[in-house]
């Protein structure tokens, strides 16, 4: 059975990717499961979708914990534990990352046994939450790597799944997807179906007897204030607002009031400060700042600059 996971951000089309690949497998004569993982998914927040395909009926269900292929639409997610990209990867897994960096860099950075491939980041957009075509590209690249889906089968699946879009958008998606398909053909067959767990040689689950806890402990209650600050929603951000302090008039904390998340506080000196651990990157502050003293820059660029500065 093929087990394939697509990781991206809310808005990048990972559900579409899983559906295109699912339909392609199906049209190629496979039994298929495809599904998005639903949760509190929001634009920019890490999400994933997955596809199973087999020649016989599929009994396995739920999240794929031992993937044959992991496709990552946005390389800023790879190192993010909450995104779960590397979960369950082993030497059998192929990790395909949409990135400007090299496979060797990622291999070293992740210190992983998995084989890393790069889906060369072609389109460069400011806001990665709006990466166009990435869903189609990921699906096409995955199809090529399995080596069981023909070019025409992929095109048919893509047309079927994107049928609600205008014709020119479909054409563009198809062309870009086929380029990714052709690029990946050199690695065709690198992704192979994984095996089922063995019933004769396995790790026994470490079951415990659930201890009894008094209600004072086991009730559904939080006895502390504002623990939500431990959740770093700043990881959703694809565009970063940056205050140009020389231009900032320290006006009247307009940015601080309008920030929906309350992620801009006013410092003792009267100037605002953005809490990047929690700023989701909505850019309301950029739009509202009277002297236009807040600029937006792509998050990945900001991080590269930070990395260079600290190096």
């Amino acid at each position, binding site marked *: 059975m093929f087990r394939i996971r697509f990781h991206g951000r809310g808005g990048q089309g990972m559900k579409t990717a899983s559906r295109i690949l699912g339909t392609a497998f199906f049209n190629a004569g496979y039994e298929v499961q495809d599904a998005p993982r639903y949760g509190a998914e929001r634009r920019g927040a890490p999400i994933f979708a997955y596809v199973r395909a087999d020649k016989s009926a599929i009994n396995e269900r739920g999240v794929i914990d031992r993937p044959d292929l992991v496709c990552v639409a946005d390389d800023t997610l790879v190192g993010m534990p909450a995104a779960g990209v590397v979960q369950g990867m082993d030497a059998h897994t192929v990790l395909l990352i949409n990135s400007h960096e090299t496979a060797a860099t990622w291999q070293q950075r992740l210190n992983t046994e998995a084989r890393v491939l790069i889906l060369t980041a072609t389109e460069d957009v400011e806001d990665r939450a709006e990466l166009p075509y990435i869903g189609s590209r990921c699906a096409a690249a995955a199809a090529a790597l399995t080596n069981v889906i023909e070019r025409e089968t992929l095109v048919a699946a893509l047309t079927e799944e994107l049928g609600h879009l205008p014709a020119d958008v479909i054409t563009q998606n198809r062309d870009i997807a086929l380029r990714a398909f052709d690029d990946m053909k050199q690695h065709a067959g690198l992704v192979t179906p994984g095996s089922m767990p063995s019933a004769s040689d396995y790790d026994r689950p470490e079951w415990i007897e659930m201890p009894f806890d008094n209600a004072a402990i086991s009730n559904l209650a939080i006895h502390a204030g504002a623990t939500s600050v431990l959740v770093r929603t700043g990881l959703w951000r694809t565009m970063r607002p940056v205050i140009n302090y020389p231009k900032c008039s320290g006006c009247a904390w307009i940015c601080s009031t309008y920030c*929906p998340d309350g992620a801009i506080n006013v410092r003792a000196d009267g100037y605002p400060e953005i809490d990047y651990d929690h700023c989701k990157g909505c850019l309301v502050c950029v739009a509202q700042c009277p002297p236009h003293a807040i600029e937006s820059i792509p998050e990945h660029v900001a991080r590269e600059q930070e990395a260079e500065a600290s190096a």
Partner: protein
Amino acid sequence: MSKQSPLHFHRMKDMPSTHLLGTGTPTCAGCGGLETLHTIYDILGEKTVFVNAAGCMTLLSVYPFTPFRGGWLYTSMASAPAGAQGVRDALDILLQKKKLSPDENVEVVVITGDGAAYGMGMSATSGAMDRNLDFIYLCYDNEGYGNTGQQYSPATPHAARTSTSRGSHGYPGYKKDLFAIWAAHNPAYVATVIAAEPLDLAKKIEKIKGMSGPRMLISLAPCPTGWDYDPQLSVEIGRLAVQTGVWPLKEYSDGEVRHTKVPKRRKPVEEYLQLQGRFRHLFEPQRDAAGIAEIQSRIDAYWERAKVG
């Protein structure tokens, strides 16, 4: 609870510069509902219990994370006002029996979306007002069942596309007048607010802090996800809702309705509509002049009746 002068908020500089509501909640980037909530929380303070109904704000607290520094209780979609009743009555009993000092008293605040306020929870809300419950009710109205993917609700405006009104003319019904329905109960206070007008919002919160009885707020909550626009436009769209007269800012008490911020010259409603994907079919592929004119005429008729502006 301390009472500040109701005239505390004159200028933006008077707005709180540090924020009580914890960051890290899973609302969408640019959420107009959260924007209202954090402003209200800053002014009401942490001596509050928020009683939450099912909606987008269900996920404000996911164990073990909460943005609240005081109290919060999740109930169900239909019964948050009844939850508030139980909490308020319990607090009053404890105060009366001197098991709670006046200093430990808290304000009870219901928070629901429009799905609960305009629909499923309406009888519970009506009942709470009948009983003259001493509480604040905040409805964040994003004009649809947002947390399930923006299906139309009783608060959806005419012509809006939702995930259950995808036809070429959008939602055929008209937004229910919850302000009038609430005001007909003659509670202590009813107001419409919006986060994009923080001073108007702050003044109203300041005012109800010193009041008792049912204090009912409907906040139009621009919703980038459900209304289909770039999140950075949240405040702009909210402001246009006021400037075009789509969302009249007003308050009710003692049998009278007062408009609190009347647009001097109302902007054409299309300035508001055209920024939102849910109304795109009014402009593309062809401009639906009749459809836009109908929406405009209903707004004009409202202001004609209101005899202001």
